[in-house]
C-alpha cells in the first residue's frame, strides 16, 4: 500500500476534523477498465483513497476517462457491482486491482 498526496482523488472533508483511522488517506493504485474503448486504450491507472467511498472512486474513474457527469456509471470489482454509498475499504481492494466501468441506470424498454 502506498501513502501519497491527495493528487487524483476527491478531497475528503473529514480530513479537516483531525486525525482518525478513517481520515488518513491510504492511496492505492488501481486500474480502471472501460470496455467501450478499443483494447489498447481501455485501461488507465489511477490512485484512489481506500478510506474514501465508492462514489469517490467513480469520480476518479470519470477523471481517468473524461466521462461526463451526465453519463451514469457504476464500477464492478471481481464480478460484484460496487454500491456507491459503501466505503472502498469494505471491498478489500488490492494494489493494481481492476475496476470495470459499466453504464448504470439503464431502464427503458
Amino acid at each position, binding site marked *: 500500500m502506498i501513502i501519497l498526496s491527495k493528487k487524483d482523488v476527491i478531497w475528503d472533508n473529514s480530513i479537516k476534523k483531525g486525525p482518525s483511522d478513517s481520515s488518513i488517506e491510504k492511496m492505492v493504485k488501481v486500474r480502471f477498465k472501460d470496455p*467501450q474503448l478499443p483494447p489498447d486504450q481501455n485501461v488507465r491507472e489511477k490512485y484512489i483513497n481506500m478510506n474514501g467511498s465508492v462514489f469517490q472512486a467513480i469520480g476518479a474513474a470519470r477523471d481517468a476517462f473524461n466521462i461526463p457527469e451526465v453519463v451514469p456509471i457504476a464500477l464492478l470489482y471481481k464480478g460484484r457491482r460496487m454500491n456507491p454509498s459503501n466505503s472502498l475499504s469494505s471491498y478489500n481492494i488490492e494494489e493494481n486491482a481492476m475496476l470495470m466501468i459499466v453504464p448504470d441506470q439503464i431502464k427503458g424498454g
Partner: protein
Amino acid sequence: MSQEDQYNSRYDRQERLVLWDQKLIQNSSVLVVGIGGTGSEVIKNLSLLGIGKLILVDVDTIEYSNLNRQMLFRETDIGKNKAEVAKDRINTMFNPQVNVETFSIKIQDIPTEIFEKVDVIAGCVDNFLARQYINSLAIELLKPYIDSATDGYLGQVQYIQKNFSSCLACDNPPPPDETNIWTAPCTLIGTPRIREHCAWKALYSFYTKYNREPRENSNKDMKSLLKIVNNCTKNYRFPSYDIKELRQLILAHIPSIVTVNSVISGIQSQLIINTLLFKKRSSLKRKDQQILKKLRESERFQIPSLTIYSGLTSTFSTFKLLADPDCIVCGNKGIDSNQIPIIQVYPDNKFKEIIQEVNNKYKDEFLAFRGNKYLDEGDLIKDILSNGDRITFSPLSGENDMRVKIIFKKKNI
C-alpha cells in the same frame, strides 16, 4: 404441399444448425413482459423461430410516440392495448402456429401460476419497480429471467438464474424513484431555487388536486399543469415553459432508437434460445448433447450474466456477475414464503446430514448452494449457515432446482 411439409420447410434453414431441435423450441413457452421497443422485437423473433407458446403482458395502450420503433403497431392501432394488437400481428404477419396468450393487466396482478408454467421469463419493461417484481418472482420460482433495458444509444441484457449469476437486487442500492414527485420534499414545499423546481411543484400540486399524475396525451391535463407551472415561474421570475418542454421534462421519457432496440432484442432472443437449449439439453439428440458438452468445455457456448452494447462505439462487452450471498432477494436474507420446504437440523452437525436428508426425501443426489457458493458436505453447519438461511439444491440427474429453508433445532443453538 401438406401441412407437415409446410412446417418442415418453414424451419429448414435453422434446422441445419448444430444443436438445433425444432421440437424442443416448439415445446417451449416464454413469458414476455412489456411489449414496447424491445418486447415487440423479441416476440417477433421468437415467433419466427417457431416458439410453441408466448404469453404477452402489457397494460399500456399504443401511442404515436411508439411508432418510430415498435414495428408491430400501425397508426390505426392508436389507443388499443399493446398485448392484444401484438397477438393479432404475430399470428397474421409472422407465424400462425404460435399459441399466444395475452394479459392486459399490471404485472403484479398476473397469477403466479402463469409464471410457474413457462420455461423462460423475458423482461422488456421500462421501469425498475416492475423489474424488481419480476426478479423476485423468478428467483422464488427458480425460473430463468432475461431482462433487457435500453437508454438512447446504450442497451444491456442481464441473465438472472439462481445459482448461476447475480439477480437484479444483488449489490444494488434500492432502485431510483420512478417519479420525481417524491424525490425532494423540500423543493416541493419551499422556494424554488431553479426553474425546474417550479415544474416539480406544479406536478405535486396537480397530484394533490386530482390524486393522479397528468396524462401525457390529454391536452386538458397538460394545459392545466402548464398554467400552474407558469404561475410559479412568473412569481419567482423564471422564464416560462411551453407545453412541449414541460412534457419532456416532467414525463421524463427515456430516449429510444429502433437500431439499439433491434440489437438488444436480438441478443435477448438468442439468450432465450440458448437458455432453452441448455435447460432442456437432455432432450437434444445424443450427438448434439456431446457437441454442447465440448462447446461448453472450450467456452464456446456461454450465457453471460451481463451484456452491454453501445451504439456510439459499436462495442459489446460481457461480464460475469456474482451473486451477493446476503442479497435480500436471492441470498441469505431471501424472500419470505410459507411454501418453501423447511429442514430442521442441529448446527453442530456436519452439512452432510442435510444433504442426506434431502437425498432420501427426494430420491435423488443433490449439490447445495448458498448464493452461488457451493456448500461442502464436510463443513459444520454452523460454520457455513445461519438459522433461517435459504439454500438451493441442484439435482445431479435433473434440471429442476429447489430451495429449502434451514431452521436450527433449539437444543444446540
